[in-house]
Each structure stands twice: as C-alpha cells, then as structure tokens.
C-alpha cells in the first residue's frame, strides 16, 4: 500500500452519533470531531476552532454548520471555514458512510493502524 492510497478505518455507526450532534474521535495527532446532520450526512473536522481552539464537537449543529461553544464562531462542516465576518480554517477529514457504518480516511491521522 502506497502512502497516496486512502486508508479507510471504520469508526462506528451512524446510530452512535445523535442527529444534529457530534462525537469525538481520539487520534495520536489530537481529537477529530465527527458530526451528523439532520439529514444524516457525516463530516469530520479537527476538534479545534480556528479562533481560540474551542472544541467544535461540543457546539450546536445546524444545517451544515456548527457553532463553536466558546465564542459562537460558525464553522462550515463541509469546508471547515468560518462563516460571516470571521476568517479561519479548520482541517477537514474525508469520511464515507456505507450501510450506516462510518469510515474515516486515516491517511492523515498517522495512527498505528496506518502502518
């Protein structure tokens, strides 16, 4: 397997995350927030607001955005960028859902399972 190939790791099922909610995925490089929207779309972002590092996984999920619990920055789940007058960017991770199972592209996570 080359480094360029995607490395999909199953991290749980859709039912593990409440609708309009999030769960934390712990990795060696820090926490990743895994979100589920009202329409059952799943997104993964570094669990760190670009503003002051707030845990985005703890925010209110609305539409395809999350509002950071610390200072109400609104971050796009799809692009990781801040909305409105704020500017900042958080890293996004590729995820896919198949048969309600959630897989994350672990090639950027550098976990033991990548080796």
């Amino acid at each position: 397997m080359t480094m360029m190939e995607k490395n999909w790791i199953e991290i749980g099922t859709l039912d593990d995350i409440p609708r309009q909610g999030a769960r934390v995925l712990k990795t060696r490089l820090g926490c990743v927030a895994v979100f589920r929207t009202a329409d059952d779309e799943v997104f993964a972002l570094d669990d760190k607001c670009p503003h002051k590092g707030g845990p985005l996984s703890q925010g209110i999920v609305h539409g395809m955005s999350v509002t950071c619990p610390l200072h109400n920055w609104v971050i796009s789940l799809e692009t990781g960028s801040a909305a409105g007058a704020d500017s900042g960017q958080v890293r996004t991770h590729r995820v896919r859902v198949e048969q309600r199972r959630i897989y994350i592209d672990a090639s950027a996570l550098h976990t033991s399972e990548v080796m």
Partner: protein
Amino acid sequence: MHNEQNGKRKLVVIGNGMAPGRALERLFEASPDGYDVTIFNAEPRVNYDRIMLSPILSGEKKFEEIVIHGDGWYVDHGVTLYKGHKVTAIDRAAKTVTSEHGETVGYDKLIIATGSVPIVIPVPGHKLAGVLTYRDLDDVNAMLLAAKSGGRAVVIGGGLLGLEAAAGLKAQGMEVTVLHLMPTLMERQLDPAAGYLLKCAVETRGIDVITKANTHEIVGSDPAAGPPRVKAVRLDDGTIIPCDMVVMAVGIRPNMALAKEAGLNVNRGIVVADDMRTSDPDIFALGECAEASGQVFGLVAPLYDMANVVAQQLAGNSEATFHPTATATKLKVTGINLFSAGDFADGPDREEIVLRDAARNVYKRLVIKGNTLVGVVMYGETSDGAWFFDLIKRATDITDLRETLIFGQDYAGGSPLDPTAAVAALPDDAEICGCNGIRKGQIVKAIVDKGLTSIDDVRAHTKASASCGTCSGLVEQLLQLALGEAYNPAAVQPMCGCTDLGHDDVRRLIVAKGLKNIPELMQQLEWKSSGGCAKCRPALNYYMLATWPGEYEDDGQSRFINERVHANIQKDGTFSVVPRMWGGMTSAAELRAIADIVDKFKIPTVKVTGGQRIDMLGVSKEDLPAVWSDLNKAGLVSGAAYAKGLRTVKTCVGKEWCRFGTQDSTGLGVKLEKFLWGSWTPAKVKLAVSGCPRNCSEATCKDVGVICVDSGYEIHYAGAAGLDIKGTEVLCHAASEDETIEITAALIQLYREQARYLERIYKWAKRVGADSIKAQVVDDLDKRKALVERFVYSQKFAQIDPWAERAQGKDAHEFSPIRDLRIPEAAE
C-alpha cells in the same frame, strides 16, 4: 456447450424476480435467438410486480393484475421455468446448477438473481407463531389470513415497507401500531419536517405511531394453553403493546449464500464489476443480491438499469456498463403523497428553497447547488416530482427557472406568501390575549364594528395586549388582516432569519395553535429554513418545555453544550462542576467528599464562587459521570451553575447567629432553593435573602431578593449586577415565609410564561411594566394561585437531578469518544 440441435448457447437464471425478468425481455429484443433459457424460481409462480404487493395487501388489487410475465410468455420465448425449485448448488468447474429436487442443468452463462431476505431482529420471541415478514406474495397471503381474525398488528419499522404494510393491514380491518427506532419516519428518504407531516397523516388514518421505540421482546402466550403465539410486544422502556400479529419490516439483506458457497467474491452483496460480471466472468449477479460500485440496491430503477447492462453484455455488447444514479422514492399508500429524490442535505455551497402551506399540509424543499437542482423532498403535493427528478438527473441549468421553480412546471405567475396566514388560520375562539382572556373573534369584531385602526384602539376597546403586551404582534396581524393595505404596523423584530415572527408571536402561537414539538411548529408557522438555526432552536426548545410540562420531550441537540452535559465548558474544553449548597450551607461530610473527589480525579483548581458554593475546575468530559457519581454518594446534586434556570440562593446567617438578624434568612433561603431548584427559565435566575436591611447577602442586585424586616419580608425583584448594574424594585411586603415563597414562585412562573428567551427578569419587567406584574402576582389572588399551581406542576418533571441520571448512564454517548485510535487493535 452449445445446444447441438439449434446452436444456441445455454443461459440459466437463478431467481425469477423483476430484475431478471427485465433482463430477459431486453435480451430477447437484442438477441432473439442467442440463448436457450432455463429459470429456477424458488417461489411457486411466475414473475410478478413486487412493488404492487402493498395494493394486494390493502385489497386494492388482485394477484392477476400484478403479473408481469404470464405462463404464455415463457412458452413464447421457449423458456423452461422451474417453479418452486430452489437451487442448492452451483458447480463452476462442471458449469452446472442443481435444484433441491435434484434437477441438474448445464450453462454457458449464469445469472444469479437471488434477491434479498428480510431482516429479522433476533429479539426474544422472534420465532413465535404470528411473527411475519413482508417480502413476497407468501408473506402477504399469511398476513391476509391472519388479518381475518382481526385484533391488533404491530409493525416494526417505519420505513417504506413498514408503512405500506401498516396501511394495508389497517385497510383489512386490523388495529395497527407502527414502532420505529428513529425519531422520525422514513428518515433515510425524508427530512425531519416531511417526516413529521407523514406521521400526522399516518396517525389520521387511525394507525398508532411510536417513534424512538426499541423492541425489547415479543411476548408469547402461555404454552400451557396450546402452541405459543404472539401475545404482545414489550419495548425497552417497559411499554407493553398487546397484539395478535407482528410484522418485521426493518430492512433487507442481499441473499448471497449460494454465491458464497460457489466461491464467488462477496462482500455486502455479490460483488460485480461495472459490466455486472461476478469474479467468475461467465456468471452475472443482478438485482438486490448484487453489490455494484460498493453499493447494494433496493429500489427498482437501478435494478432495471442493471438488467439492461446484463442483457447487453449477454448480447455481445461489451461496452455496456452500470453506474448508479440518483433515485427517487414514493410511498404507495392511497391518499398520502410524498416524494424524495437526489441529495437533500444542506451545505454552505447549497441553497434551499422551502415552501410550506400549513393549511393544506404541504411541504416542499428544493436543494440547489450552483445552477443545478440536486435534491427534492415533497409532502402533500407531489405532482411535479417527475419533473424535478428529471432536472436532477439531467443536471439542467435552472438559472432561468429559479424564481418560480418551487411552484412547479405549470407555474404561471402568483402572489407572494402572506405573512398573516398563520393568524388568519386561527379559529375565532382562539385566545390571543392570555392576560385578559380575549379571543380572536372578539378582536376582529371590535376592529370591524367600531372602525378601529391602531393597536392602541384595540387595547382601549378590548383590553387585548393591554397588560403584558406579548400578544401585540398578533393583534397587529389581526389589524392587518381586517384592514389590509390600510394598516401599517410597527415592525416586529423577528426571532432570527428563519422566520418573520417575533419571540412574543411565537410564544402566543405555540399556545393558541397547540404546537407541541419543534418540527410541528416549523411547519405550522411556515419556518423559512428546514431545520432552524443555533439562534431559534434553543429558544423554541425552552418555549416548548415551559408551555407543555410533562408532554414535551426535551431536545438535547437544541441546547447549548453546558445545558446538554450539565457542566460549564471552559476555554480549554474541560468542564467545571458546581454542586448545590442549599442556601450556601455545607458540612464537614460534604467538604470531605469534595476534597476526596479533587484528589481522586486530580482536579487542578478549586474555588469558592460568588454564589456561596464550591467550583471544581478542569474536569475532563469523560470523568464527569464518575465525579457526579461520587458527589451523589455524599448527597450532593447539580447546582445548575450552567443553566438558564435557578442558580443560587445566597443568604446571610440571619437571626440564628447575627445580633442584627430579624428573621431566619438562611432557613428561608434553603426553603426557597428547595422549592425552586430544577426549573428552566428564559435566562438564569439568582436569588438572595438578607436577614436585615444591612443586606449582607447583597439581595438588592439579584433577580429576586428578600430583605427580612421585623414585620416580615420585603420582596424585591428586577436587579442586575452584570453587564448592567441596577438596584431591585420592591414588589411587595409579605407577612410569612409561606407567602414569600408563594409570591416568589408566582413571579418566576409569570416570567417563565412571558419573557423572551435569554431575557433576564429586569429586562422583562421593564418591557411589560411593573404594574402588569404586580397585578397578577400580588393583587389578584386567583391569578397568583393559578401561577403557583402551574409552577408546582411543571416542577414535578423538572426536579430530577441530572447528574444522578447521567451517573447511571443517561446520554452516555456525550461522555465517551466514538472511538480511540490511539489504542492499537489487538494483533491478529
């Protein structure tokens, strides 16, 4: 292995469902003389339209009407059909298949179309007589037979099949209950708004629907009374539903056992390449048993696309390939119209157009990306479904259609939506002004009869909106309705971008229209977004909770993190924990327990708060339930230091110790806190009780403050010591502790019922006026009593320690990661 007589090759088909039927039709068109065909059908009948099983169940159609290929078709095309022959083995080396009756037939090409099997949840009792699935004609016949003796059917699964089964059984005269694991019906095809409307429609048909229902077991009858059969279904929450039949309609699983035994590559289904060939190039897999592009399929459109590809390949066109495209869903229940297609999730690069017509129960949502339509959900009126679906599939540029797109293909001009529609739809006896009990009919009559033209006129003639004023917005809309263009109302500040209605309008309409959950409210009040935003959802959740105690189920996802996990988030993502210390009192045992917890969980900071309690800062989220469990053991409960609710009741030591004390201020503080704790309020509420006018507990800058005097208790309210600094105002004098508690509870209840979300008591009081508050809380004893009764009733559901619930496992998902990738998996 060509047939030596006619030179044709041999094609064997395992399965006789709709997909192979379509493949053969296409094959006979493309290559009429190419193959000798043999079909093995496990079902003892010809190919029929499985989609039409629901009309058979409901009695709207007969089997003969849904047959696709009659016996004559097989004869005309020289097809040998083995009915009721299940194939038990494929010998790939010899290129033969063998049926359970010992028939062995050779093939050049083989199609496996074994379809799928219904999923049966392995709960206790799933094998009892009377537990059925819904998949083929035999299942339908079994249901029809069982329905003859009447009784109640429980359908497990509120998806497409489950709802069709429920409607069919209802039509056969049974009582029906649908159990659905998720919060809204058909959640894979519909968004929550459309799911809500569907639930209403299903319930209108007399079918009971229980969502978030997890089946615990199927209870059987007493074996002593004969062979046991279904008697009831028991849910996880203990609910028991007596019934005579259980239908499992929770989903299907590709039937790939035969292919697996034959050594073909299988995953979730039988894996095929885009030319529909399995890992053996002479064997195709087709239909619900096949996995193509990593997906399996259950709807007919992609299965027919697969069938075309198989036919083309067999006819020699090696270019033909299968690629899944968007699919559309329709529910086949007479009178319920819903349609969904494409991808209808929100997104920053996506825009939505929502049309709601509350009076006609219509909901339409289009999702647009760039200049194309990518998804559609429609309920109530679906005539444009095919047109929208076509726009999605063709990725048509809709720039020119956009303005009127949501009105459908035939739209030719129309008027803008009427903002007064919600008020117009209210009946004449709907109460508009709660303070004075004025109904819509009285107001409209006064406007017309007396020629009123302003809100002040209406106040003068009817008293509507003359007290607290929260119904002003609605009265203005009534003026606008009655006077039309002639009336120019003062602008109401909308709650948020999702609506034109203000907070007060929404609160009154929740009561007037009896709106009991958020999706229902968004539909009835014609919300402009499909699911609300971070601004309106916490407010709506509070309004529902305050209006419908005991009925409304709290929506955790609409709460800010602190209220969702019952602790205060800190800048580093850790939490702080503040247990209640009633009236600021504590003991050696409590302090010792706190000290032990601080040591045990290595809590870095411990601080005394301004509200006379102890704050433990820097607790990790995962430790919270364990910390709470230890606190609970010492009798300590949540201090709600995170809540829009009752926070602290600060006290001085009072006459028990102090030489100036006039009353037992500490005791009264404890009693107030024990009476008020747990209640949710529009914003936080802080109290204090001082034992004398020296006011050591600083009661005169609190939301409610009590100053003890020789003759009794002075009740103050509407103070502030935050962004604004404001001394309290005197509400009244009370003679006893009981009267003080009663008036305080009435005041807080009035605040709970009237204030806008996040509006502190001093702002609310300024807006509605001290006179209006005093009149209801102090002067009118009947109103005071009614307010207290409503408060006491709502406390029945609020005074539950949230820490104890979570220490025992509630909302466990909040406190643990979904997975920890730092922990290596065990080596294989």
